[in-house]
């Protein structure tokens, strides 16, 4: 190629197992929300240890967790586009998450991570008031997450599994979020082109085919970055997941999580090899996608499969096995992010305890004792184990005429 672009292939090694730099600050001191969902304007101060955010359904508890996820990953687990979180009628939403060391109250030791989301236009990320790339924010906050959206992880749609992989990969591999954002954008553009071609006459279609080529190249380049990142992540998750699963469900058999795709990549395939396979896949499907009017191959179609004792869990999993897996994955996620950052992540549990049975609940309570901060949502403190409630700071979230607010 005569031109060097940011889509050129990389000859760099995969990320190291551990970064040498000090980890992100340990806890969130404050969350500020402005025109996000039910929050008109609100500030919630948080301490270390378990933070119990309780209130009626629709009070705005989950939005607090969503804000932390957006700051840590650049996307929301409840919205396909960030602008969906902007309160009705508002020009823009703004969230600010202040993070700092667990014990230090010095404001200079704190970072404010702000995300401004206009109803129309480009999202802006700011670190300590200065516009920076999303990656600059993500380096300062890591979150491990349990959300009801993921309870159907084993038997649900592939999108649920991709969302989980993407969320962890984004926090584990610098550059992953950027590749994903570029890929998703190029995919939308290319699908529009395919749709235009479907409705066009012969001559126009030939011009559009010429225009298609660079979009395909872009999808191959960014798609290979994504697949490489996902394969590396699954490989890194292997041991911590098996270990966590043995602890949670010693009698169920060995767990394995495998990447599944049309291309059937070798788990250790380098990026160049993945790109070659993707190029071939685009060539193979060019005719069919022409009829169907959308892109048929690429990481947005890939999936993951769970095996326990050699059996595909999707076919055989009981409710209990699924819960074991969810809990084991959460523990593995904590282990992996701790290893990456040199400090444990902040744990976000959205309505988690109602999803788990008593023995797995106890394990989770035991685990979060060793974490610097956990944000827990529940409709009432009565839903949680008394020993957890006793150790937690309870913050009531209510929805008034003025929007959501926090009551201590």
């Amino acid at each position, binding site marked *: *190629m*005569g*031109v*060097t*672009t*940011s*889509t*050129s292939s*990389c*000859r*760099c090694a995969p990320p190291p197992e551990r970064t040498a730099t000090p980890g992100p600050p340990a806890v969130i001191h404050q969350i500020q929300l402005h025109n996000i969902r039910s929050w008109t304007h609100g500030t919630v101060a948080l301490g270390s240890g378990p933070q119990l955010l309780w209130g009626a359904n629709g009070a705005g508890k989950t939005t607090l967790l969503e804000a932390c996820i957006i700051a840590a990953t650049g996307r929301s687990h409840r919205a396909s586009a960030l602008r969906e979180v902007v309160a009705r009628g*508002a*020009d*823009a939403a703004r969230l600010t998450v202040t993070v700092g060391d667990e014990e230090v109250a010095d404001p200079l030791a704190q970072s404010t991570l702000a995300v401004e989301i*206009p*109803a*129309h*236009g480009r999202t802006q990320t700011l670190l300590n008031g200065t516009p*920076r*790339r999303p*990656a*600059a924010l993500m*380096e300062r906050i890591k979150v491990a997450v349990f959300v009801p959206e993921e309870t159907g992880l084993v038997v649900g749609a592939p999108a649920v599994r991709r969302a989980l992989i993407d969320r962890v990969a984004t926090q584990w591999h*610098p*550059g992953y*979020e*950027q590749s994903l954002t*570029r890929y998703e*954008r*190029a995919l*939308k*553009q*290319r699908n*529009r*082109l395919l749709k*235009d071609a479907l409705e066009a006459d012969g001559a126009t279609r030939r*011009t*559009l085919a*010429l*225009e298609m*080529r*660079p*979009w395909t*190249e*872009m999808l191959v380049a960014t798609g290979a970055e994504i697949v490489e990142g996902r394969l590396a992540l699954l490989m890194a998750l292997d041991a911590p997941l098996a270990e966590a699963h043995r602890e949670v469900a010693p009698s169920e058999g060995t767990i394995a999580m495998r990447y599944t795709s049309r291309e059937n990549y070798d788990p250790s395939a380098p990026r160049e090899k993945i790109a070659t396979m993707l190029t071939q896949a685009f060539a193979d499907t060019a005719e069919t996608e022409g009829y169907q009017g959308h892109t048929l191959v690429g990481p947005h179609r890939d999936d993951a499969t769970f095996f326990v004792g050699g059996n595909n869990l999707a076919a055989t999993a009981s409710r209990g096995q699924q819960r074991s897996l969810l809990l084991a994955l959460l523990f593995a996620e904590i282990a992996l992010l701790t290893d990456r950052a040199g400090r444990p992540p902040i744990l976000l549990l959205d309505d988690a305890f109602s999803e788990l049975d008593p023995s797995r609940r106890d394990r989770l309570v035991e685990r979060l004792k060793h974490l610097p901060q956990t944000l827990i949502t529940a409709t009432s403190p009565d839903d949680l184990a008394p020993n957890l409630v006793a150790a937690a700071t309870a913050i009531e979230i209510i929805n008034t005429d003025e929007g959501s607010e926090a009551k201590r």
Partner: protein
Amino acid sequence: MGASPLPSSVERLIEALSRLPGVGPRTAERLAFHLLRTPIVDAKALAGAITTMRDTTRPCVECGHVADQERCWICRDEGRDAGLLCVVEEALDLVAIERTGAYRGRYHVLNGTLSPMAGIGPGQLRMRELFERVAAATAAGTPIREVIIATNPSPEGDVTLLYLQERLGDSVAAVTSMARGLPFGADLQYADAVTILRSLEERRGVE
């Protein structure tokens, strides 16, 4: 909904302002009310400046830059290297490069990037003009030696770069793009991981 609480002339201005990029309905209201309270001479000067700007400027027939004559001042400047052409998305990008004072070639303004979702294909950009310019220079015996494609590093900018690279192909001796990575003067320790990663990916040999 009843009648609007505002005179229709105010409503019309709010509507017009809210179509400006980056201006939402609330901001448009604030701007309109600011203009209502501002001294009348200032408000009229603003309206006059908009009209005068539109009446006295046009795109340069050669490069597409904003000009007050048929050809812009850069295209008229005989001291400029006609063998070097820098392709930019917008005239504002040209302004940014000109501020450096270091570039002595000419420009070509595309007026955007490829974006199927926005309905922008090669035909909506000044691409045909670019190919014709390159061909005309070759035919005249003064071929363009190098085309620098200075699109932004967005997916759309990169795709436009790839498209132009392929289309220009053999008709130009060299097609190049801008280097990307660490901002000059930036400290490695203050750069985010992605910037460092991309800079590493695009590292080059030291001469």
